[in-house]
């Protein structure tokens, strides 16, 4: 396809529909994926530019045996999010952010994931869930 975006390739060629399209134009963050461990909006990345790079989507976080990533587990622990359409993007942004700051305050983490929009406006519970995820991740890295 002409000017094929990464989100389009993921969703329509690879069947990885966990990456959501909320705005088509880098405004909402629902399509956030990790490219070489850095969060990007997949709607605004051309697929040919990621040749040879490591792309991780929400589908790639849990282990093959079904064990959730500590940040995903944080959502389970806190019943985070409402409709959850924004959730894959928020989780990928958080996982990416925690690689640079594994032990953030609520304020720091809010800054770190502020490129993601939640229209249910469940920000307080999202932040609580992501803080729990950060704590889970620190624990798993220790143990």
């Amino acid at each position, binding site marked *: *396809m*002409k000017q094929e975006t990464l989100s389009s390739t993921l*969703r329509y060629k690879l*069947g*990885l*529909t*966990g*990456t*959501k*399209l*909320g*705005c*088509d*134009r880098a*405004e*909402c963050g*629902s399509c956030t994926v990790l490219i070489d461990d850095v969060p990007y909006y997949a709607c605004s990345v051309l697929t040919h530019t990621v040749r040879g790079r490591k792309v991780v*989507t*929400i*589908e790639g976080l*849990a282990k093959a045996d079904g064990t*959730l990533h500590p940040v*995903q587990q944080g*959502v*389970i*622990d*806190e*019943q985070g*999010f*409402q*409709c*959850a*359409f*924004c*959730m*894959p993007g928020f989780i990928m942004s958080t996982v990416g952010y925690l690689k640079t700051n594994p*032990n*953030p*305050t*609520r*304020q720091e983490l*809010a800054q770190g*994931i*502020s490129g*993601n*929009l*939640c*229209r249910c*406006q*469940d*920000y*307080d*519970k*999202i*932040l*609580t869930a992501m*803080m*729990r995820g*950060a*704590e889970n991740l620190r624990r798993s890295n220790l143990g």
Partner: protein
Amino acid sequence: MDNAKLDHEKTVETAKAKDKDNERQYGAGYKLIGKNYQTPDLYAKVTGQAKYAEDFRAEGMLFCKLLLSPMPHARVKRIHSDAALAMPGIKAILTANDLPAPADTLTDNGTVIKASKWGERGLTNEPVYQGEPILAVAAIDELTAAEAIEKIQIDFEPLPFVVDPLDTLRPGGPNPRTDGNVWTRRAGQNPGPPEVTELKWTKADFADEKHGRLPMGKAPDEWSYGDVDSGFKNAALVLDETFVTPDTSHQTLETRSAMAYWQNGKVYIYTGTQSTAQTLPAIARWLNISPDNVVFISEYTGGGFGSKITGGVSMIIPALLAKKTNAPVMMRISREEETFIGRARPSFQGRMKVGFSKEGRITALDMFVICDNGPYDAVGDAPSSGRIVSLLYQPQSMRWRGVTVLTNTPPRSAQSSPGGLQGIVIIEPIIAKAARKLRVDQVAIRRVNCPEGKAPFGPAVQGKRQYATSAFLKEALDRGAEQFKWSERVTRTPKRMGTKVRGVGVSLSCYVGGTIGFDGLLVITPDGRVVFQSGIGNLGTESVIDVHRAGAEVLGVPWERCDVVWGNTTKNLPFTCVSGGSQTTHAMTRAAYATAMDAKKKLQEIAAKKLGGKPEQYEVANERVFRKGGGPGMTLAQAAKYAIRLGGVYDGHEAPADLHKLTKASVAALAGQGLVAAAKDNYPRDGSTFSYVASFAEVEVDVETGKYYIVDFLASADVGTVIHPRALGGQVLGRSVLGIGHAIGQKWVFDPHYGEMVSKRFHHNKPPTILDVPVDMQWTALDIPDPETPVGARGVGEPPVAGGCASILNALSDALGDEIFQRAPVNADTILTSFEAGRPTQRPLTAHI
């Protein structure tokens, strides 16, 4: 600070965050109600496996794109589509000429409601707003469909248009529809559906306009109670204020994409709605086919807020294109298309004259509102604003007048607290101003006007005013004030430090909190599991699951032994309320309770038949039915097997006569699969159900830049029994932030010359981000059961919204004074220019600026 200390502090902070909603123990005496748990839909959501509409695929699926009207009002003269049709990969074009005739509605009691000639149909040859779909193209992929749209030329005849409600009410002003500009109802006992008529005010009516006050000409709708004139005469203070509230798009993060195909004469539609069971008849009506020929799948819905209550334009177009092409069709709605077809809250231009006693009690209220309806079906915001204000502040006398004006702007629909938000946001700043003038505390002035118990509301109907089932708002206000440390905050000095000024605000808020009369359905399977059939939509509030915890509680079954079926109309769902208007938690806990009681009764009867004695000698608990005080019993699994042997009412071969036909069909389909329990909610209710919230906010304004931050926020809710604390907290704070968006930035902007919207995207119309709200918001709930419903639970979606907005506005005026703003949202340049000028600099009456 060393790292170890930092780590400790952060761990403490995380733990504190986690315990926030556990500070109060909800659900005393219950095992499931009032307790947190993991909802069964969460794992799929967290792993990306949850399927929203656009995640479904079908063999040979085509893609569809829309051609939207570039003009706010026009007539399509000719469509030139030959070049597009000649393109490879183009399969079909659908125009308004392909639409079925609008269907009449047959209500459950057999009344026929004629289809409205002013109603929206999906595609049109007379677009009445910029962005209205004119035609749709189906092609092998989305890009090809989009290229075909570019090749289609349309000859339009421009028609007169209007984007500001006041402009169409002027003498000789343009009409948004060819036959009128306002929705009116005929007078008399049987007024029938509303009609579009023409209303023009006189030049004299507009005399107040030049003073910045809302002109008040003839209003089609009016009611009053008490002696308003005496109320004003006896008042210690009378304020007369004009205020404008914003239009706000719902902007669900999942746009209203849909996929459809036909199989054996039935249409299968995959999309997201707020209400699974009730969307089926809506689709049937739009397509003018029998509901028996509709299959509807909506497992996960990416937000609704009132914009996806049932079916609409977005489902009909792919369904009809799928029929025309004999292939599955996916219509992916872009963000910009969503702005046009996705619904919005109507703005109000409002004026209120309010009389206060010296203690702040409202002696008289004269309320006038103009509701910007958009071009299609009449929204109920204007009438509901009057009823809500009359309940929330209990004015001793009141007159309400309203005009619902059509404009050539995108269609509106209910949005969380429809009319309630607008009415409350207009009166709250007036109450805040009155408190300052009367030197009464802001909490005290609201306390003196608070509804209590069976509080009356609205006008008298046949000599009697309606009333609420209950109201504990005073208790919620008191608890909120205590938890927010209101007294400390208002006395704290100095208010100003350098360029920063702090202000605190409080607001009352309420909305309808539930309906009655729906059905529940469950099956106890031969392996002893309890399967709840849920016709509620899965829109994120978790009520689709939560309400069934009340059923499990009655039956004494551990939650691990329960399943919930949802999201697909082939899965035998009961007749359910629409998941809108905060009805669900109230209506469907009642139905779940009634159904569980039916199951309990059947278990007792089965035990008596099998083991002897009378049914009432048996009790149901711990997955068993057994003789009270010890003795013989059987497991639920054994009872389910015996129910199948007994047949009749026990396994669903017979159903109660008062069930809705949809529930009866589902009971029949489940017959023989176990013990089938089904019941209609026939519990009495004295009064109308409402929920209430008291909201508190503190802001810090930089008067050098006009920029402000919300420092703290707390919402204290009176929503009856708490069913699921975390889900409730998400609703109370989430809906509060929706309201906060109305205060701090969300709005529509139109170019009045061309009728063109210039706020089409998120970065133009600015819904709140995580940085716009405090990082640690607070909520609490009274957990006092409503006395008029079995479990005591009321709905919560709408009530917090207005409080979110008005508490911020009141905190701003506490910081800056009363002469800063006369409309919401309040942004930095308004604050800066008004603060310097010492008077409001915004034009108060122009719409969409």
